[in-house]
């Protein structure tokens, strides 16, 4: 990468730990945005380095440091972490609150997303997957992003939140700006818009509670029976909005792109449609290799971490795709082994903020793939793929993916 202008690094960062790295920028010709991260490892940059791009932040390359970043909240906080920084930024509930305070909203959300709860949603997930797939199965082609991967999790989110499905496009637009824009004005305006939508939603659910998640959040009470602070309720809605839409979309995009270009893998799943255990084991491997999220932390106080000086409010990125291919933890990490027996991937994070929606996300992927493979014959990439369709950032992925069969 050629430097035209490099912002200065703060004076606590030694020169030999500075690497010019912009995780939003995917160079022309790179077809998989995760490759910009793995390229760092191939280049042999320091395992803990600092880039002055995007407001300046650290990057950890090793699995051991990434899981430490997740677990050690006395150094690596989730409080107001966005990169580049947005000030002011909401204290997202419960993700943006360190233990033990995060327990209040974590305990509220957890029961709604346990494996037991997700099993209860499976029939609805399956019904929706079938309806969406049968809408285009006979046409022999689709743009997987716009016709499935965006619509499916977002429509399910609206359903789980008790919102009308007619608002799908509005929510897709809000999520796209939130995850893709690097323009500070657009990002600030976007957050205001998201909060206005959530405020109206929670007021409506407070007046007319239903059996949906938004109603459960707004009608819940604290330990002393008191209503939760309205700001916290909004911030909890904000978390569910930003965490549940884009991540599933792009995980699906990555997985379907892989299946379209690997007929043996496609057949592997087709052969296991009647063996959910083996099917799920193979999905775990695709979760490992297609980890879309790069997670932010903020340093709580000036300190030394493994001989590196960190300063209070320094930002750190924990890139799950890097952790998931660390050869010190994974046998033949770059090989996609659909029967991989030991697979401690961190695609959903680890520690107290482990993705509360992980079981719902995995179920959406699994059911979608099962119903897809039952209805769509051998499929592949269409010849006319859209140009510049990859993006980096906190969630990596694709804006277009044309498939044909």
């Amino acid at each position, binding site marked *: 990468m050629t430097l035209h202008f490099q912002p200065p690094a703060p004076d606590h960062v030694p020169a030999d730990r500075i690497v010019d790295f912009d995780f939003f920028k995917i160079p022309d010709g790179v077809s998989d945005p995760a490759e910009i991260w793995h390229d760092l490892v191939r280049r042999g940059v320091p395992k803990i380095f600092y880039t002055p791009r995007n407001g300046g932040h650290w990057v950890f390359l090793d699995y051991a440091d990434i899981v430490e970043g997740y677990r050690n909240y006395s150094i690596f906080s989730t409080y107001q972490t966005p990169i580049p920084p947005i000030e002011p930024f909401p204290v997202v509930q419960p993700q943006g609150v360190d233990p033990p305070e995060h327990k209040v909203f974590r305990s509220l959300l957890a029961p709604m997303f346990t494996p*037991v709860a997700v099993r209860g949603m499976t029939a609805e997930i399956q019904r929706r997957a079938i309806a969406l797939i049968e809408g285009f199965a006979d046409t022999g082609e689709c743009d997987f992003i716009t016709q499935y991967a965006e619509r499916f999790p977002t429509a399910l989110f609206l359903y789980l939140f008790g919102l009308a499905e007619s608002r799908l496009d509005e929510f897709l637009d809000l999520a796209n700006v939130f995850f893709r824009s690097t323009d500070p004005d657009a990002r600030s305006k976007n957050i205001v818009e998201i909060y206005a939508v959530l405020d109206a939603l929670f007021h409506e659910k407070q007046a007319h509670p239903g059996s949906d998640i938004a109603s459960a959040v707004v009608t819940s009470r604290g330990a002393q029976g008191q209503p939760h602070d309205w700001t916290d309720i909004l911030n909890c809605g904000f978390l569910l909005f930003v965490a549940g839409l884009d991540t599933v979309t792009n995980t699906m995009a990555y997985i379907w792109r892989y299946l379209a270009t690997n007929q043996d893998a496609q057949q592997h799943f087709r052969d296991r449609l009647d063996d959910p255990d083996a099917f799920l084991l193979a999905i775990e491997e695709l979760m490992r290799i297609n980890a879309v999220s790069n997670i932010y932390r903020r340093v709580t106080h000036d300190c030394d971490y493994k001989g590196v000086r960190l300063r209070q409010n320094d930002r750190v990125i924990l890139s799950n795709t890097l952790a998931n291919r660390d050869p010190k933890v994974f046998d033949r990490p770059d090989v996609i082994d659909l029967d991989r027996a030991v697979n*401690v991937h961190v695609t959903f994070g680890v520690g107290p903020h482990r993705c509360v929606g992980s079981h719902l996300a995995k179920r959406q992927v699994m059911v979608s793939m099962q119903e897809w493979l039952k209805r769509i014959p051998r499929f592949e990439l269409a010849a006319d793929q859209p140009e510049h369709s990859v993006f980096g950032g906190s969630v990596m992925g694709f804006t277009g993916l044309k498939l044909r069969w």
Partner: protein
Amino acid sequence: MSHDAEPQGALTVVANLDLCQGHARCEDLCPQVFATDAVEGKVVVANPTFPPELEEKVRLAVRNCPEGALRISRQRPADVDSASKGTGA
């Protein structure tokens, strides 16, 4: 097979609920031994002492826990004996 295993003592698996974060990989890999609760989604080990024919699956579940929250141990009759002797002396 179970007759051969008996003299070595039974295998047990123990979960550390402070470490468990509810990934449920153990439940996916070996539902005969592991479940998850409906409140926090944390592991519930219904039968800590599992039969030898499940040993391989339990060991895989333990190795796949991203939090290292599960441990297997073998209760040795010899250990129990020496422990009680020590207490007596």
